[in-house]
């Protein structure tokens, strides 16, 4: 972050606005709001240097509740607005807040283009696998067969795998977290913010009104240990009750093995390395329906992070280079051009 840092220490409370928060009671958005407010003071960025930009959706009400600069734009276009802002003001800390419909349905194109251009911004994708604001139609992340208001006989769309899609668009940072695991969420938010480039953080968010329990299997005490795989840099892929399971790479294909029956030890396992693009791709494919026999656990954490030039910085370099080469633009000589004549 090029942004100037501050001497007086802000607190989470400094980021709360006077606007009443109007999500449904129990909505997962509350937790995400709170974690964002709580990690911001530690980033050292001044309130006035932070901008939250959202599209339209329940989640996109987020900027109203952040005591920073903010824009609640139009449906699907937050990333495009943020791109322009980043070009105008590279020094600002820009956050995009978007839903699964906002970013992956109407806004899918802007998302993948923003990602390939790698503006230095943080995209928080609130995935509740439903359209909340419009009261319950299926979204591009809803599972096949999902019964919703617009699909009384079940959805016919094969859903997107958001992280696989973003990796396909050459993302430099992809990660996943969930509303209910607040400590982990704060960690990943901080890493997303630290990443220089576009960080795409998918957050599983419960919509208790229209899609309650969509991610229960990963958040519920009982199932979480078996179903959620927490990625830690340099650590083996271990999960399960008493860490009794791990994942190995079998000539390029992942496989779940047991660690408690003597056949494998932690040393045999796949070591998480977020700089390995091939492994990151494999991790995105851990996406089976959790009700299927033999499915892989769902990973959480930072899948992939790499460094690539940022559009706005490269542009700045070109602007500087142009001045170096041609001198600072002189309007009068531009206006006159090369061929003039005079009428006396």
């Amino acid at each position: 972050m090029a942004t100037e840092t501050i001497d007086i220490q802000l607190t989470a409370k400094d980021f709360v606005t006077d606007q009443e928060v109007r999500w449904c009671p129990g909505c997962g958005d509350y937790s995400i709001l709170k974690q964002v407010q709580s990690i911001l003071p530690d980033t050292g960025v001044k309130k006035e240097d932070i901008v939250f930009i959202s599209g339209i959706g329940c989640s996109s009400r987020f900027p109203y509740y952040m005591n920073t600069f903010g824009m609640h734009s139009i449906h699907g276009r937050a990333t495009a607005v943020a791109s322009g802002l980043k070009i105008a003001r590279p020094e600002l800390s820009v956050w995009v807040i978007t839903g699964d419909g906002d970013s992956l349905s109407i806004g899918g194109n802007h998302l993948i283009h923003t990602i390939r251009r790698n503006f230095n911004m943080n995209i928080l994708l609130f995935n509740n696998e439903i359209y909340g604001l419009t009261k319950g139609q299926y979204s591009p992340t809803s599972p096949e067969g999902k019964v919703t208001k617009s699909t009384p006989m079940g959805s016919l769309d094969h859903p997107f795998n958001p992280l696989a899609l973003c990796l396909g668009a050459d993302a430099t940072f992809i990660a996943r977290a969930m509303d209910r695991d607040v400590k982990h969420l704060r960690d990943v938010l901080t890493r997303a913010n630290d990443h220089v480039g576009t960080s795409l953080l998918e957050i599983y968010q419960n919509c208790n009104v229209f899609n309650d329990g969509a991610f229960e299997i990963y958040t519920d005490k009982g199932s979480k240990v078996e179903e959620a795989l927490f990625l830690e840099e340099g650590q083996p892929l271990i999960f399960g009750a008493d860490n009794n399971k791990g994942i190995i790479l079998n000539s390029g294909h992942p496989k779940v093995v047991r660690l408690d029956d003597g056949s494998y030890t932690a040393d045999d396992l796949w070591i998480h390395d977020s700089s390995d693009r091939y492994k990151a791709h494999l991790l995105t494919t851990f996406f089976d329906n959790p009700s299927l026999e033999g499915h892989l656990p769902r990973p959480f954490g930072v899948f992939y992070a790499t460094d690539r030039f940022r559009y706005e910085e490269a542009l700045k370099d070109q602007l500087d280079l142009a001045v170096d080469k041609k001198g600072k633009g002189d309007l009068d000589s531009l206006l006159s051009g090369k061929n003039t004549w005079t009428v006396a």
Partner: protein
Amino acid sequence: MTKVVEEKREVTIVFAGDSGDGIQLTGTQFTNTSALFGNDVSTFPNYPAEIRAPQGTLAGVSGFQLQFGSVEVFTPGDICDVLVAMNAAAFKVNLPRLKKSGTIIVNTEGFNPKSLKLAGYEASPLEDKSLEDYRTIQIDVTKMTQTALVDMGLGKKEVDRSRNMFVLGFLYYMYSRDLSPTEQFIREKFTKNPLLIEANIKVLRAGYNFGDTSETFTSRYNVKAAQLPKGTYRNIMGNQAAALGLVAASKKSGLNLFYGSYPITPASDILHELSKYKNFEVKTFQAEDEIAAICSAIGSSFGGELAVTASSGPGIALKGEAIGLAIMLEIPLVIINVQRGGPSTGMPTKTEQADLMQAMYGRNGEAPMPIISANSPSDCFDAVFEACRIAIEHMTPVFFLSDGYMANGSEPWKFPSTASLPSISVKQAKERKEDDATFLPYKRDERLVREWALPGTKGLEHRIGGIEKEWDTGNISYDPENHQRMVKVRAAKVAKIADSIPLQELNNGTATGDVLVIGWGSTYGVIKTAVSQCITEGISVSHAQIRYIEPFPRNLGELIKGFKAVIIPEMNNGQLVKIIRDRYLIDAKGINKIKGIPFSTDEIITAIKEAEETVKKA
């Protein structure tokens, strides 16, 4: 043998050939040389729709028409004095533009059997009696060029590519022009290839000398320098002028220019032009589509830059939703529409004025915004500068309407100095201290304008968006009274701009009379010419060209009342006429041409005379 030099007041030439024949370059060179010589000029390039349509076909004909004169010229001419045709297809397409007794210059090699067939001729029209009315000059340009370049070691392709220089040289002879500006151009263009410099100059001179020495050509013409107002001039095209206007507005407002755009004919050239000005801190962003283009501009404007987006009709259609957002946000934004033939994809390389209603109404809800247009290529500079001024000073998106005709046409421009340009005042909200009153993002001044509050400014943290906002605070509000008040105040803010724009002046004619011709946009030149001519003939007619379409100048209604009949020529099926009729309840009549090409002077004169007749009868 002495050659007669005949004086001419003005001359119209059309250059025509295959799109690979370098027609546009030839036309531009002749234009520049004439302009440098001191003529007034006006041009109209007419491209084919295809990038490179098959050689020799009718569809592949590229044309460049120009009028130059010792008097002021306002149009590229209706009918041509001279037709230069590089092949049979070019001849066929353009012959109807030539006046009886006009001069035809043809490259005979372009009338070989294959070319004739491609053009759909059974027999060569050059041997036809029908050409007797014209003066035909037949030159085997291809052979002459080859001869001139023999032994230079150039390939056939390269040799053929310089044929246009022969024609140009010949015309320079005919019109007593200096070769040096074009020679200079050649030197710069081929700076990396001295052989091509030599070849092209050789052919250019060969063409000139051919005219000079050949016994056939007994007449030469002279078109004296025009009595243009004193000053220094350059030649400029509309899109170029628009680009410069944006850079100038950036300079005079002290704001960096951001240009978010997606390529589309005929607007792309503004993007190409601006992308060269990086040393002016001009940031061009080629977005993934038109929606991203305008949204990125909105982001940039929120960040405090002079934000601009441009497109043509279909792309503008895509921007409608985001324009509504900018209206709600009340931030500066200039939206340029270089109009082309519609609807839908329409006729991308042809001109039209059919997007006025789209500019007025092409979005949901009550969403008024200023609309401004330009009268001619060089006027694009002033108009776009003014659009920027209004956007910044009144915190509003502004439409600037250009069209393919003025975007690609050119004319001499008495360019201003930086110092002479008005400055644009930017009113940004100031940093707030702890005990200052809370910042109210939607508090308005007496012009109903809110303050621009830039991220990075302490104490101005605020959130805005597309949902209806509360008076002063800008918070979300669903209050019925508030909504009505906000809809009204947004409309009033735009209406109030009328206080700061000039009154409508007449471009010609007396303040009262029989017929008033109201135009907007690129019809300026042709209406000006037609009205002048009618006045000369004693007809009671005046001309008002409207630059400010929304809001109208305050006095427009009054001005209209001075006339018994109002006619409104437009290159559409009647759009401004609808607005005028609604606003002033007068029976204004539309004069409409929807052919992808500009009006001719005659068409306007006829319309004026018909209107005059009706007035007289009544």
